[in-house]
């Protein structure tokens, strides 16, 4: 035991280092669909090691109070039960908001740890006070921000960009308040319990900032926002790690910070938007009006029966699933249609835009859930040359990613990578209504001679096509 006494810190350090390596290896294995699941397991092992080391550390050195032990274990039990049950029960279409919800609780936990640090810290060096303050701010902003993001995806909070009245004034006041609180915490000799007022005020101002930050951003941009907030939580955890000088919190926090940052950049690029543009809220407030001057398009409506004939007698059909399919939860209907068409000898492929669905890669998850083989999902670069060989392209709830206007300059979506659906011999677009896409412009694809529109909810529309195909 004496050996352990002298070396507990060193042993913990190396075990933390080992779990950090497991986190890195876990992320690395997520590079390929084949090893991704294993990567998640490796990451879980790293987490278990880190938690066991921390528990051992606390129990070996002893708790100041037995109540803390009970409440800690009780909290862990409650959290584990809640997390497990929600994660098992959630429908895959609702998964993006669940990720956001887990980000909410993570950010909340990081903020609470920082608040706790602030309350017990007395006579700390200035660097520690800075990290504590940053931890509280980032954690709190993430908490309310992710909560609003989850609410927008779930439809509890309006998904369209909401103009917060006096946003600039509120933001300004909060920022001034944060600076004032931070100053009070620095200058106060009674940092700790004596300084509870500035600590609470600091938290409150940060919570408000989280709300005004996400409210003006539209629902379709939420994945990018969630990814940014994910990075924020990682950073907040690293800050908390600085305060208690904990290796695994610093390293894992930084890993997530980098992952979230890169991921948000990749997602923004796939939508041809800059991060700044997304964070400013709304969609391209400048220049959208100029595109409305185009001539009125004539859109031709079709019926489910006609679509059924076109599809059943096609040699190759390409389905373009989009946001509308995800919202309607029509993946099982699409899978069913695919099965029936294949039994009639039709080759069915899926064209997957990088940002299809409600999150990059979300469409793959949804279609995989409906038992559609991974090999049938073709990525943008590979599927574009195939459209010219397709007898029919069925667009299900995708809009801006199919708009040929992106190839021209001077439109809000110019330069965005799009699927070359207009190259197919026939195009059928399933669409809920005549509304414009997220970019707020008309989709020129709909006015092309080979394009027919089938209005209706994706689930019902595909359902009626299936019924019609069966009767053929």
């Amino acid at each position, binding site marked *: 035991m004496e050996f352990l006494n002298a070396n507990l810190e060193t042993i913990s350090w190396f075990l933390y280092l080992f779990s950090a390596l497991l986190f890195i290896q876990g*992320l690395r294995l*997520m590079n*390929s669909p084949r090893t991704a*699941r294993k*990567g*998640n397991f490796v990451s879980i092992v790293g*987490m278990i090691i*880190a938690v066991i080391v*921390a528990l051992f*550390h*606390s129990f070996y*050195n*002893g*708790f100041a109070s037995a*109540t*803390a032990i009970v*409440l*800690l*274990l009780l*909290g*862990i039990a*409650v*959290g584990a039960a*809640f997390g497990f049950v929600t*994660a*098992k029960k959630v429908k*895959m279409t609702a*998964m993006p908001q669940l*990720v956001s919800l*887990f980000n909410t609780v*993570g950010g*909340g*936990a990081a903020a609470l*740890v920082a*608040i*706790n*640090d602030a309350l*017990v810290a007395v006579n700390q060096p200035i660097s520690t006070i800075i990290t504590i303050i940053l931890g509280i701010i980032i954690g709190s902003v993430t908490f309310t921000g992710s909560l609003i993001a989850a609410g927008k995806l779930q439809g509890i909070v309006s998904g369209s960009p909401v103009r917060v009245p006096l946003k600039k004034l509120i933001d300004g006041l909060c920022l001034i308040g944060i600076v004032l609180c931070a100053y009070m915490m620095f200058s106060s000799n009674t940092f700790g319990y004596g300084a509870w007022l500035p600590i609470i005020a600091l938290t409150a101002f940060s919570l408000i900032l989280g709300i005004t930050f996400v409210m003006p951003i539209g629902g379709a941009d939420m994945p990018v926002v*969630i*990814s940014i907030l994910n990075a924020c939580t990682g950073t907040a*955890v690293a800050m*908390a790690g600085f305060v208690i*000088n*904990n290796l695994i*919190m*610093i*390293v894992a926090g930084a*890993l997530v*910070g980098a992952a979230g940052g*890169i*991921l948000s950049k990749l997602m923004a690029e*796939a939508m041809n938007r800059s991060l700044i543009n997304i964070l400013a809220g709304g969609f391209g407030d400048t220049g959208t009006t100029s595109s409305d001057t185009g001539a009125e398009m004539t859109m031709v409506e079709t019926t489910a029966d006609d679509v059924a004939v076109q599809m059943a007698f096609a040699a190759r059909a390409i389905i373009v699933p989009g946001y509308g399919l995800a919202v309607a939860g029509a993946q099982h209907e699409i899978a069913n249609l695919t099965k029936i068409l*294949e039994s009639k000898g039709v080759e069915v492929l899926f064209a*997957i835009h990088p940002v299809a669905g409600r999150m990059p*890669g979300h469409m793959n*998850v949804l279609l995989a*859930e409906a038992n*559609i*083989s991974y090999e*049938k999902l073709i990525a943008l670069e590979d599927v574009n040359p195939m459209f010219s060989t397709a007898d029919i392209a069925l667009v299900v709830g995708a809009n801006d990613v199919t708009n040929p206007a992106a190839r021209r300059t001077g439109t809000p979506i110019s330069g965005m990578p799009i699927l070359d659906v207009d190259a197919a011999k026939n195009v059928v677009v399933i669409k809920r209504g005549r509304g414009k896409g997220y970019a707020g412009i008309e989709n020129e694809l709909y006015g092309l001679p080979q394009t027919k529109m089938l209005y209706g909810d994706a689930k019902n529309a595909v359902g009626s096509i299936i019924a019609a195909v069966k009767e053929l």
Partner: protein
Amino acid sequence: MSTLTIALTLFVFALIIGVIVIGKVPATLHTPLMSGANSIHGVVIVGVVLVAAEANTVLGFALIFLAAALGTANVVGGYTVTDRMLDMFKAKPAADKQEKGGK
């Protein structure tokens, strides 16, 4: 070197490793990856366990309880939902058969 200097160095190196590792992930795996990274920041539970040892006031107890519940929900829920997502990517024998039958 001070502890903070070492800690900052670790932070920067971990950021760089994160950028390198993530830079390679294909777009189809972005959602599971975001979810996986999301579970990793649940490592905040380590901090909760460590500071719990020093908690000795009612406010401290309340904070520990809440933080433990939120942090664990993040870890357990995050890993579970990531596993559910990735489980769907594995080759399904039934789906393979269908594909062959259709051709």
